């Protein structure tokens, strides 16, 4: 079990340690605090903690305390999050989540799973009990998006290579999660498929490597590359069709406290019926598109304006139209070389 000592969280230390950008990930690892690799929790102890509601784990800068009442949800959670570091009991967490049936009756009759986050007017609805894990993922998305204003956040995938990050904003259905997943299992370090976290003070992206949500055909495409053992079971009949999760590569979790400098902003669109192409964006277009991808720029006001302007000033941006995953990945690699 990986533990963190007192005196601030690891990413807060890394702000000072990694103020210099443009470093190779291997060098970053050598300079990062030496901690034992995270070990999967002992099944019975973890299961008991999840039932009791005092299981604590960390993903990047966010620590969560979790309760899961459903045995199936606990099994799904341990299968998908088993490699993530646990979090000390004596430290405050960012989020406290409970996934449980809406009533005692619903534990047995048409069982369901409902998120309890301790926040009134949260937009959660009960899901069938076998989708309890999806309820957890939705809850974590919502908690981060609505509360994590120490970060400038974008709805985007982020991967990095040699200390330099590419951010790929995109609406659902544009293919960014599949492209992010493909890159993550092909030598790029996964930061996130959903949330780009930018620290306004430093202009660096910080990892938030959640399991990557894959839908429908993308599941088999990524399973073929990553190995079936890295893909969760399939969750059927969700609002988005069939969903499965890619467990992040080991490197993504081991380096989850090591940020990267932004180098490239890409706006990918999966267009199999069109010819593949890139279109470079002028600075004003890039600013407008990047700002529109931000989740909390309105809440951050001037801080967000300055951070986005700085981001656009240091990165080139492109629309990327691609017809299949291999092509998209190749184009990302070539663009990264071009801006190096």
């Amino acid at each position, binding site marked *: 079990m990986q533990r963190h000592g007192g005196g601030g969280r690891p990413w807060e230390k890394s702000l000072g340690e990694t103020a210099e950008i443009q470093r190779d990930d291997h060098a970053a690892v050598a300079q990062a605090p030496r901690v034992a690799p995270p070990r999967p929790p002992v099944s019975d102890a973890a299961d008991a903690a999840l039932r009791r509601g005092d299981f604590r784990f960390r993903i990047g800068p966010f620590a969560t305390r979790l309760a899961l009442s459903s045995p199936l949800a606990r099994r799904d959670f341990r299968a998908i999050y088993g490699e993530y570091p646990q979090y000390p009991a004596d430290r405050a967490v960012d989020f406290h989540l409970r996934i449980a049936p809406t009533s005692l009756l619903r534990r047995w009759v048409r069982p369901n799973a409902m998120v309890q986050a301790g926040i009134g007017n949260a937009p959660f609805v009960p899901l069938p009990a076998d989708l309890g894990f999806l309820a957890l993922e939705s809850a974590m998305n919502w908690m981060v998006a609505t509360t994590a204003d120490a970060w400038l956040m974008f709805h985007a995938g982020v991967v990095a290579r040699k200390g330099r990050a590419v951010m790929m904003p995109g609406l659902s259905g544009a293919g960014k999660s599949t492209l992010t997943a493909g890159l993550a299992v092909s030598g790029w370090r996964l930061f996130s498929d959903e949330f780009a976290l930018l620290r306004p003070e430093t202009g660096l992206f910080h990892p938030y490597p959640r399991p990557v949500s894959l839908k429908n055909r993308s599941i088999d495409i990524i399973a073929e590359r990553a190995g079936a053992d890295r893909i969760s079971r399939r969750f059927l009949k969700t609002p988005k069709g069939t969903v499965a999760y890619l467990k992040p590569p080991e490197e993504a979790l081991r380096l989850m406290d090591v940020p990267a400098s932004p180098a490239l902003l890409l706006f990918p669109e999966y267009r199999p019926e069109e010819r593949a192409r890139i279109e470079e964006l002028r*600075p*004003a277009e890039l*600013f407008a598109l990047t*700002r529109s991808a931000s989740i909390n720029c309105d809440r951050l006001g*001037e801080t967000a*304006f*300055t951070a986005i*302007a700085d981001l656009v000033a240091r990165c080139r941006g492109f629309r990327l139209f691609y017809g299949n995953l291999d092509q998209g990945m190749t184009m990302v690699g070539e663009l990264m070389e071009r801006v190096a």
Partner: protein
Amino acid sequence: MISMTRPDIRWHAPGSAGFIRRDLAGVAALHDPRSGETHLLDLLSLRILDMLADKAQTAGELAENLARELDARAEERAGLAHRVAETLHEFDRIGLIAPRADDPVARQS
């Protein structure tokens, strides 16, 4: 929002000292902390805003001053005046400018 059919209104940009700007290769990104809004302005719009920050002017005075500054030909002045009117309308709509508070014409509106 005051009707743009009142050409004798003197406009100014009272919040301009607080605007935050960044240049984006010929387009200005401008953040107004009062509203939290961010706008993209082309060079002409930015110049109009700067002129109103320096001194309150009517639409006609602005167009005349701009025409002189840009050395506009006679046949270009009508188009420039139209562009000034459109820009003032938009700036008024998004709150970047306002009629001078002591302007008797504005008080009647």
